[in-house]
């Protein structure tokens, strides 16, 4: 069953058309990977789903409900979380304060917090530290932790491995695998080796258009297709 459907989505930023025609079906469960080179429109796709940029014409449907014109806050309340490329943490707040903001009515569920601390032990160690003082990897952990502070059906994650050390990338992969058991993850990623280990389904976007969609297994096995699309697109 499809969880999210993008239908001929077009997004303009100012006078520039960034997405020309994005049609995509994200099935429920697991990790869906969106691949593409810099400037292809991956981040714009995620931001348009979140309502941060207005997708028009075209539509975004979540569980069959048209959310194209909804306010970002209303989209978030439907159970969609967003981890932006710049991580979007609140540097002047502490780690715990960042998490409190993501908790329903400001009340942190201790069971969920325990799970988050198991996934990302650094966040327990530095819970009273200001978020700006964390390392890049810890900031990324905090950003992901905030997205799973409450049960979410869909988590949009934008290039989480960018600039991270290999050890952190591995632990992030483990965390995504575990999170993907409860939620669907729509992951934008340029690191194909990281993405192929996680993704069940995938799509490639180029010049504001989806140029391929299929299973990651088939894509990873088809070196010719990889050469053609990744050579063109990555």
């Amino acid at each position: 069953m499809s969880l999210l459907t993008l239908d001929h989505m077009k997004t303009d930023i100012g006078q520039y058309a960034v997405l020309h025609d994005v049609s995509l079906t994200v099935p429920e469960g697991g990790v869906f990977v969106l691949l593409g080179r810099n400037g292809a429109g991956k981040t714009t796709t995620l931001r348009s789903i979140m309502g941060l940029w207005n997708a028009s014409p075209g539509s975004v449907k979540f569980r069959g409900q048209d959310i194209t014109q909804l306010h970002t806050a209303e989209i978030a309340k439907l159970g969609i979380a967003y981890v932006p490329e710049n991580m979007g943490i609140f540097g002047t707040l502490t780690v715990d304060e960042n998490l409190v903001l993501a908790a329903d009515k400001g009340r942190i569920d201790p069971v969920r917090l325990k799970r988050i601390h198991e996934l990302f032990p650094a966040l327990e160690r530095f819970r009273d530290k200001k978020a700006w003082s964390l390392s890049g990897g810890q900031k990324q952990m905090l950003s992901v932790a905030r997205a799973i502070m409450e049960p979410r059906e869909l988590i949009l994650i934008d290039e989480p491995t960018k600039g991270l050390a290999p050890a952190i990338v591995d632990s992030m992969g483990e965390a995504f695998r575990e999170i993907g058991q409860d939620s669907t993850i729509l992951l934008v990623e340029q690191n194909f080796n990281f993405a192929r280990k996680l993704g069940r389904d995938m799509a490639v976007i180029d010049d504001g258009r989806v140029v391929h969609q299929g299973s990651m297994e088939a894509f990873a096995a088809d070196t010719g297709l990889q050469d053609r699309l990744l050579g063109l697109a990555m």
Partner: protein
Amino acid sequence: MDRISEILGRMGGVNLLPVALAAVAFILIGAPSSWATLTVAGLAMGMMVFLMASGLSLVFGLMDVLNFGHSAFVSFGAFIAATVLAGLSTWLAADSVALNSAALVMAFLAAILFGLVAGWFFETVIIRPVYKDHLRQILITMGAMIVAEQTILAFWGGTPFTVLRPHFLEGSWIIGDVSIEIYRGFAFLLGLAVFVGLYLVMNRTRIGLLVRAGVENREMVEALGFRVDRLFIAVFMLGSGLAALGGAMWAGYETLITPALGSELMIIVFIVVIIGGLGSIEGTLLGAILVGLMSNYLGFLAPKMALASNMILMVAILLWRPNGLKPAV
């Protein structure tokens, strides 16, 4: 140099600036009683300016709105409070602290209420259509300021309006050689109470957490499920209410007010917001106290320099810290 900065940081960092300024002024002024009187006057002025500037700083920091019309709330607050006080002149003249206080509270409440309602109207009708467009914000809020000034002129006339003070706030406390005007002491205490209240709201409540997060990254707050536009209205109303209260306090301080009161004060208010750091309540307080002390000390030591003192202060601080003393982000 780093070591010195570290030691200063541990001792209080930029919070020490007013103390340092007071210490330098003590040496230059020479007479302790004059210094004490000027210091209290500077602190009182700083606290009144803080009332007016704190809301503007939040509006600037959170909403990225350049509101030159903020002065309208100051002016209206002053005139509305003065009118209520004039209407309750028999209460003010009575030898009863209860009646005096009741008149004062009613005047303040009327000013604040006006600020809240006018703030809601201003945000909804004037500001909302020009979000993210600084040039249009400047033009439209300057226009609103002119309209507000002319409205005051139409209602209250052009001749200076005399403001009555409650009987219990008249006179001075004499401590040794030092004379402290009671009204200034009251202004200081009221400003301090508002600061403590705002500080607690900003640092101990979920709303405060949201405002601080919103100052830093509005989009992310929305992506977490919060309607920042509704938060904006609340912050704008709060800022307008505080500006009106500041205007009401200033009216009692000056005792003679004109419709241009708000726009005259706006320069100081903007300087305070800029040197304090956008969106920061603590920074605004620090900036306001520095401006208040500097104005009073230089007004005594070098009266010809007094007008330029705040500009010099702003230039010096911005050269040292381009984002202000305590920016929220």
